[in-house]
C-alpha cells in the first residue's frame, strides 16, 4: 500500500496510568458516574492534581445529550484542550492519537482519555434502533438483531470465502476465556471448552452464544503526557511508536472481508520500526471472533485467507506463542460500550509496565493495539492501530 512518509513520529509521547472501573452487567449509575470514578482513579494513582489535567477526551454512547463539554462542568475540570470521540471500538486508538498530537504540540500537558458507558436493563435495545440514520432506515427494521445480524453476514461470507469453520473461531474465544481466568475483573469467571463453544445456542447463524460479547457498564482510562513528565513523576509508562486510523475503507466491497488497517499498515510498521514478527502480543478488537481473524490478516500476521490456518497453528493465550487479548478481551471480560475500545489499550499498558499479574506475557517489549468501531449500516467504518513499546 502507499507509504506516507510525511507522517510525523510520535516520539516523546508517554502513555501511563491504565485505569479500569470494574465492570458490572447492569448498573443504575449513569455514564457521568463512571467517568467520575475513572478520573478520580487517574488523579489518585498519578498523584497529578485534578487541576493539572489540562486535556480531556471522552468516549461514550450513553452520555447523550451531554458530550465531553458537559463532562467538564459536571466534574469541575477546566481543560485547555477537549475532544469528544464517540467512535466505539476505535475510540481508544483515536483518543491516543489525538492526545499524543496535542501533547507534542504543547496544546496540553496532561490529557486524560476516558471511555465509559452505563448499562441499564433497557439500554442496549434502546441504543440499537437509534444507533445511526442508516441503522434506523436500513438495518434495524430487518429483524432487529443489532450487530449480531451484521456480523453473522460477515462471518458467513468469510467462512465461504476462506473455508473457516466454527472451530477456528472457537479457538479464539476459548483462548480468550483462558486469559480472562487470570483477570479478576473479567465478567466471565469459568473456563470455556471448545465443546461448550460449539454446543452453544444459535443467535444469528452462524453466530452462536460465545461469539457474542456481554454488554455491561464500566469505564477505562489512561493519561497521555510527554515522556519527561512521566519520568519526572515516576509513573510507569509506555511509548507510542506508531499509530494509524482509517474510516470507511474499501466502501465498494460488497461485504466486509478486509478492513482499513490494510491501507495504512505499512506506514504503521515503518513508523514504529517494527514488523509483525517483532510484536510480542496483540490486543485486537473482538466484538466477534471473525473480526479478530480479519485483524490478524490485515495487520500482516498472516496473509488474507490464512486466518483459519493461523489460529490452528498458533496458541493465542497469554502464555502462548501469539498472545492475543490477554485480559480476556470483550468476549470474556465484557463490553462496557465505548470502554470496549479502550480495553486493549489499558491492557497493553499493563503488559508493558509489568502490571499484568498472572497473565503477563513473558519479556513483552512491543505490543500492538487495534481498534474497530461503528457499524452504521452493514459494516464497521472506523479502524485504527497503535504500536506501543516499553520505555527504556
Amino acid at each position: 500500500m502507499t507509504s506516507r512518509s510525511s507522517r510525523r513520529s510520535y516520539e516523546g509521547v508517554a502513555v501511563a496510568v491504565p485505569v479500569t472501573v470494574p465492570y458490572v452487567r447492569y448498573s443504575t449509575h449513569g455514564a457521568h458516574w463512571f467517568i467520575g470514578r475513572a478520573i478520580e482513579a487517574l488523579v489518585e494513582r498519578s498523584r497529578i492534581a485534578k487541576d493539572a489535567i489540562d486535556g480531556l477526551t471522552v468516549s461514550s454512547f450513553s452520555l447523550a445529550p451531554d458530550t465531553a463539554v458537559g463532562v467538564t462542568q459536571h466534574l469541575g475540570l477546566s481543560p485547555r484542550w477537549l475532544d469528544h470521540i464517540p467512535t466505539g471500538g476505535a475510540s481508544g486508538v483515536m483518543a491516543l492519537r489525538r492526545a499524543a498530537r496535542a501533547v507534542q504540540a504543547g496544546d496540553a500537558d496532561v490529557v486524560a482519555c476516558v471511555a465509559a458507558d452505563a448499562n441499564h436493563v433497557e439500554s442496549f435495545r434502546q441504543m440499537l434502533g437509534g444507533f445511526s440514520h442508516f441503522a434506523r432506515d436500513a438495518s434495524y427494521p430487518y429483524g432487529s438483531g443489532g450487530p449480531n445480524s451484521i456480523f453473522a453476514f460477515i462471518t458467513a461470507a468469510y467462512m465461504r470465502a476462506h473455508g473457516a469453520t466454527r472451530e477456528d473461531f472457537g479457538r479464539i474465544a476459548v483462548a480468550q476465556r483462558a486469559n480472562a481466568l487470570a483477570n479478576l475483573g473479567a465478567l466471565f469467571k469459568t473456563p470455556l471448552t471448545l465443546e461448550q463453544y460449539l454446543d452453544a445456542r444459535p443467535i444469528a447463524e452462524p453466530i452462536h452464544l460465545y461469539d457474542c460479547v456481554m454488554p455491561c457498564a464500566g469505564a477505562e482510562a489512561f493519561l497521555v503526557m510527554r515522556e519527561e513528565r512521566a519520568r519526572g513523576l515516576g509513573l510507569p509508562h509506555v511509548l507510542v511508536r506508531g499509530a494509524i486510523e482509517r474510516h470507511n475503507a474499501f466502501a465498494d466491497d460488497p461485504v466486509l472481508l478486509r478492513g482499513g488497517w490494510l491501507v495504512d499498515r505499512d506506514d504503521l510498521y515503518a513508523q514504529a520500526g517494527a514488523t509483525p514478527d517483532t510484536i510480542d502480543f496483540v490486543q485486537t478488537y473482538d466484538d466477534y471472533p471473525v473480526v479478530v481473524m480479519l485483524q490478524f490478516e490485515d495487520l500482516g500476521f498472516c496473509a488474507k485467507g490464512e486466518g483459519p490456518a493461523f489460529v490452528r497453528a498458533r496458541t493465542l493465550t497469554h502464555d502462548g506463542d501469539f498472545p492475543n487479548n490477554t485480559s480476556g478481551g470483550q468476549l470474556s471480560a465484557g463490553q462496557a460500550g465505548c470502554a470496549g475500545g479502550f480495553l486493549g489499550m489499558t491492557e497493553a499498558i499493563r503488559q508493558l509496565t509489568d502490571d499484568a499479574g498472572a497473565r503477563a506475557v513473558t519479556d513483552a517489549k512491543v505490543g500492538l493495539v487495534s481498534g474497530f468501531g461503528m457499524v452504521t449500516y452493514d459494516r464497521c467504518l472506523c479502524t485504527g492501530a497503535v504500536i506501543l513499546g516499553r520505555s527504556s
Partner: protein
Amino acid sequence: MTTPLMKPRRKNPVLRTRQMNLPPFARGRTALGMTAAAAEGRFELQVCERCAAVQYPPRDACHRCLSSQLKWTPQGGAGELISETVLHHSNDPFYRERLPWRLGLVRLDAGPTVIVHLHGDVASPPPAGGGEPPLSRKEVRVHVGARLDRAGAAVLIGFPPEESEHMADDKMLREMTSDPKFRKILVTDGKTEVGQALVKALVKAGAEIVWLGHAEPWKKLPGLADITSLPQVTLVPLDLTNGRSVGALAGEIGGKVDIVVNNAEVHRAFGIAARRGTDAAKAEMDINYFGLLRLAQEFGPALKARSADGETHAAAWVNVLSVYALSNYPPHGTFSASKAAAYSLAQCLRAEMRPSGIRVVNVFPGPIDDEWNQNLPPPKVAPGALASAIVKALKEGIEDVYPGDVAQEWVERWRENPKVLERELAAGG
C-alpha cells in the same frame, strides 16, 4: 419450495388473542421515499442525476460525486445473495414473536449492498465452512423487491428469481401482505357489477368466507343468484346509510372479519348548476363519506383487536374511491366532492389503523364501465379488472392503487402539476 399454508384450525377460545407489536417503523424523511414507491408496488432507489450512482441506504448527497440531485428511480432488483443469516434472537418484540427469521445480504447488480428479508425459496449460498467454492462461483441469484411491512414502512425482500406455486404462503411474506387466502372478507355492496366481480376474484384467491352486503335483500338483482350459490358466499343485510344496520352486522360478524372491502357508492352525474337542490349530493355523501365513517366506527375496532390473531389475522381495509378524489371532474362534480371527502377520511382511517398493523388500501379507479358512466367514451375500467387490481394489491401489500389507463394518466398529470390538471379538467378534460 414453500410449504402451502394449511387451513388454520379453529381458534381455541380460552386463549388470549395476541396483540400487535409493530416492527420498528422509524424512518428518516429521506428514507420515506422508498415507502412512497412501495405503497404503489414499486421498488425505487435514489439515483444521482449527475453521475448515475445508485444510493443505498437513502442519502442526502451522492456518495460518489456529492451532488444533492438524487432522484427516486424504479429498480430491476436483480442481484446476488452474498450472505445470509437466520436470527434466533431479536431485540424487538415483533421479531421475537416470529423467530426464527431469515435475512440476506444482497449485492444488487445496480451497485449497492442491501439487507433484505429473505424468502424461504431462495437457495442458501454453499454451506458455511465447506471451503471449496470461492465467492465468485455458484452464485445465488435473487430478485429484490420493496414491500410495506406491518407498520406500513417499506422494507426490501429477497425473492427467488423464479416464481413458485405457493410462494405467497411464505411465513415472512405473509406478514408483509394481506393475502385473501383463508381469510374472511366483507364486501359491502353486492348489487353492483364491481361488488360481484370482487366476490368472484376473492373466492378465486382462496377467501374462506365472503360476506356480501345487500341493502335491499328483497330485491332480486341480476347476477346475485350466481354469486350466492358459491359455497363461500353469504348474503348479509347491510345499509350504510343506516347506523343501526351497520352496528347490527358488526355485532354479528365484526369479530370474525379479516378484510373489509368497502365498494358501496352512490354515483350521480352533473355538477352544481345542472341539478337543483342537494338531494343527489346528500345521497352521495351519505354513502360515499358517511357510509365509510359508520362502517369504520363499527368494524374498525374489531379489526384492530385481531391484527395479530394467528396466520389469518385481520389484515386490511379497502376503500374503493375514485381518481376524481384527487381533482374535481366537473361533469361529475358532486360525486368527485364526495370521493374527495372519503379520501380524506380514508387517510385518517389509515393513521388510526396503523398502530395495529391493519393496512388501509385506497383504490382510485378511473371511470368504471358501469351504467353511471354510460355516456363516457372508453377507456373505462372493467369491473373484473378493478376486482383483479384490488386482489393483487392485497396479495402484494400495495397501499395506493390507480387501476386503469385513465387513472394512471390522471395521477401522473396530478403529480406533475395539480394546477395544470385543474385547468385542463375545467376545459373539458
